[in-house]
């Protein structure tokens, strides 16, 4: 299979190009060893079947960030036949840095000059022929959002497949460094085992920069040890002669080359005019207006997700709780099987699937706003707030990702260079309310705060963010002391979202929830059913689910009663307490467990909860669910990033915090006379 990889800086329209080339025929997985999303698709060009891989958005090819390491490891190990470097024409100089880094690797490159419309609206155009001549690779122009130039890109890829890539010496590192590069290069070329690992010139450059990843791989060979040792000597010698850190010096030379090429290819066609993006940003990124605007946007996202999706949830509940449940209960199956399917699987899964519409609508709104270019602005606006909590602005991206799922949020903290910032971000990320906690809020807010569901749920999200920021401040002042680093972020121009892009993104994100519903949640529902129909006296039968006295003698009843005393100050009954246990497996299971234990469907659950909770105790329960122990997958992610010590710390502090917070809600409510 012919492999084509798409590379480029973040926000250059890579996803749009990917979708155009593959026509949405794509699947999402993870890159080996990490939970960074890997998108692979199929395309057909000139009768050839291509595998198109969307590499993570990167600025260079260092080994410092996980995304850059993934991209270069893919290029080195998978050896794609063609790499398409998508360059933002309206920010040529910055984007060319990556192009030069890719060319140094000696790959078969095609440069896609995207967003030429934005560049022209800024008053200049790029001389693509000159750029092609200077870089020595084909350059094609596109406007991916308007589907312009895609055929030209396909042709360029087809042409590129007929030739082989070669390393180009575009960046001149100066006589002394070039001499050292040549010496190392010839040594690598003379060793066949090393020659096949990397492009020799690129490897020589990386060794002089002190790239640990390349050094490690080289040391795996006896001849490589000699090369690494020589590189170390040369680096020390050059640093002494030049009086600078050699890596920084080489990076600067690359930036100089990128700047020189960009200046040579940019043609000013008219004075830079005010763009639509400039105009709107005077308000959207304004330090006073930006914050209420962000809050309003989030409020509308929640209204859209929870109120507008309601009929679809009703439909799913009717299908599961009504039609399917009745059909199984009325069938001629043995009583045990009927109960397992109807009371366990259908009730458990059905009570979770009703949350598919709000979750899909939430992802739809977020994906559309990402494509419009607003989410980056929201992060920018909120960054000012983050800084006050001694958290780097870089922590904003992981925390925003946490709204979907805490696991990728924790993994996304990896690029944070400051170790103290990274550790604090990883530890507080589970406080951000992920989509798995939504079902609990929806059920309880729907039961006790009808008419204000959106506001109550938004309140829980705000509380999660507030707690995360306060904890970050505490961690940064105690466990991880040190100054905060700055935050640089590129704001993409505003664009009309592409329907296919938004649809694909929404589906990819929603698919994960569906997968979880079919695996972890299914198993969780079965476990709850089993623990409810069995007890110390053996099999109690399905009637345990309808008879409260019998249910209390089940394993679930015993477990719940054991926990009831702990949660007595909050006024939760044993069923609510037992359901919390299952949240440790996956937070989504809490509602499913409640539905099974109360012996009702999701619609009936709201009514059943009204007899067990009050508005105040329900608010305390939501607060507890927001803050208590992260799910197993999140604990594993924290362990992977920071080790067992910090994973245990996360579990301990979250449990204590959740308990204190829930108790405070009750105390405060009683003090104010709220019941």
């Amino acid at each position: 299979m012919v492999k084509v990889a798409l590379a480029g800086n973040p926000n250059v329209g890579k996803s749009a190009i990917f979708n155009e080339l593959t026509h949405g025929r794509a699947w999402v997985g993870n890159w080996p060893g990490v939970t960074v999303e890997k998108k692979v698709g199929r395309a057909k060009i000139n009768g050839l079947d291509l595998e198109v891989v969307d590499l993570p958005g990167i600025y260079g090819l260092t080994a410092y960030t996980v995304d850059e390491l993934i991209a270069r490891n893919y290029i080195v190990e998978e050896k794609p036949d063609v790499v398409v470097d998508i360059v933002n024409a309206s920010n040529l100089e910055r984007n060319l840095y990556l192009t030069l880094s890719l060319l140094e690797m000696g790959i078969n490159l095609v440069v896609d000059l995207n967003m030429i419309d934005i560049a022209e609206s800024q008053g200049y155009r790029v001389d693509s022929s000159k750029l092609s001549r200077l870089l020595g690779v084909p350059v094609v122009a596109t406007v991916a959002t308007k589907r312009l130039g895609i055929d030209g890109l396909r042709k360029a890829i087809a042409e590129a497949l007929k030739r082989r890539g070669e390393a180009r010496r575009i960046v001149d590192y100066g006589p002394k460094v070039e001499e050292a590069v040549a010496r190392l290069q010839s040594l690598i070329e003379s060793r066949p085992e090393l020659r096949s690992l990397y492009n020799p010139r690129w490897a020589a450059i990386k060794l002089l920069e002190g790239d640990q990843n390349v050094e490690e791989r080289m040391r795996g060979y006896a001849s490589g040890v000699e090369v690494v040792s020589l590189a170390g000597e040369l680096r020390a010698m050059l640093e002494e002669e030049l009086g600078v850190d050699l890596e920084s010096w080489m990076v600067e030379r690359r930036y100089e080359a990128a700047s020189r090429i960009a200046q040579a290819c940019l043609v000013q066609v008219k004075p830079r005019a005010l763009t639509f993006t400039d105009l709107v940003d005077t308000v959207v990124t304004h330090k006073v207006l930006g914050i209420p605007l962000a809050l309003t946007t989030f409020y509308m996202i929640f209204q859209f997700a929870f109120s507008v999706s309601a009929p679809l949830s009703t439909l799913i509940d009717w299908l599961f709780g009504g039609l399917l449940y009745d059909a199984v209960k009325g069938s001629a199956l043995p009583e045990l099987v009927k109960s397992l399917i109807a009371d366990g699987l259908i009730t458990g899964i059905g009570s979770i699937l009703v949350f598919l519409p709000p979750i899909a609508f939430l992802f739809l709104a977020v994906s559309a706003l990402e494509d419009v270019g607003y989410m980056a602005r929201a992060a920018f606006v909120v960054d000012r707030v983050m800084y006050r909590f001694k958290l780097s602005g870089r922590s904003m991206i992981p925390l925003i990702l946490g709204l979907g799922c805490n696991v990728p949020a924790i993994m996304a903290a990896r690029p944070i260079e400051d170790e103290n910032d990274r550790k604090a971000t990883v530890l507080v990320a589970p406080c951000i309310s992920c989509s798995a906690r939504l079902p609990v809020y929806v059920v309880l807010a729907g039961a006790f705060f009808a008419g204000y569901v959106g506001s109550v749920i938004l309140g829980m999200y705000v509380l999660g963010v507030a707690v995360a920021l306060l904890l970050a401040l505490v961690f940064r002042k105690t466990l991880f002391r040190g100054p905060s680093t700055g935050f640089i972020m590129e704001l993409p121009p505003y664009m009309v979202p592409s329907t296919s892009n938004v649809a694909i993104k929404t589906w990819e994100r929603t698919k994960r929830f569906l997968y979880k519903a079919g695996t972890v949640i299914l198993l969780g529902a079965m476990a709850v059913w089993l623990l409810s129909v069995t007890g110390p006296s053996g099999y109690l039968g399905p009637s345990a689910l309808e008879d409260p006295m019998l249910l209390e003698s089940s394993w679930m009843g015993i477990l719940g009663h054991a926990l009831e005393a702990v949660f007595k100050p909050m006024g939760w009954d044993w069923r609510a307490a037992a359901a919390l246990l299952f949240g440790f497996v996956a937070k989504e299971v809490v509602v499913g467990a409640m539905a099974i234990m109360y012996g009702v469907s999701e619609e009936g659950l709201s009514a059943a909860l009204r007899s067990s909770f009050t508005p105040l105790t329900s608010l305390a329960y939501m607060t507890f669910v927001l803050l208590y122990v992260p799910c197993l997958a999140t604990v594993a992610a924290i362990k992977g990033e920071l080790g067992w010590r910090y994973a245990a710390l996360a579990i301990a502090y979250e449990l204590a915090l959740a308990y204190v917070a829930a108790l405070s809600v009750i105390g405060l409510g009683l003090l104010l006379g709220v019941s």
Partner: protein
Amino acid sequence: MKACKLSSLAIGLTYASFAALTLFNWLATTLPLGLKAIAKLAWLTIPGDLGLSVSLLTVALLFLSSAYFDPGTVKGAASMLVGCIVGVAVLAMQLLVVAAGVADAALTCLAGEAAEYALSEGLLRPDVLLGLGPLALTPYSWRRAKSLVEAPQGSIATY
């Protein structure tokens, strides 16, 4: 331009008043402060919703900012345009919520259960009625913004 400035000021002040009313109702219904919520103002339903209050306040701030900077300036035109977009978005969202409420009630009835939905309460709200102001101003604010900016005009043919 003066009429435009006055319209912005009027819309901004009206939104600010209703933002204060919804905030008052939220405080009255949430906290036991002894306040009596103003559920109706003439035939208009005033919800006690903090999120809605923030939304109305945002639109108010944007229109007041437009009046302050003058809609003829970049900042003024941008504030008016974003104010119109947010005002219309809040209106559209409430219409979607009403449509969803009606559909939900219909589905519940189809499933054989009793359901009701007060259409007037969903429609006769400040976010819906006040949204008509920004809706009427949207074409003007769009033209005003367009006259100040250059639209992206890249052509593949020139490359």
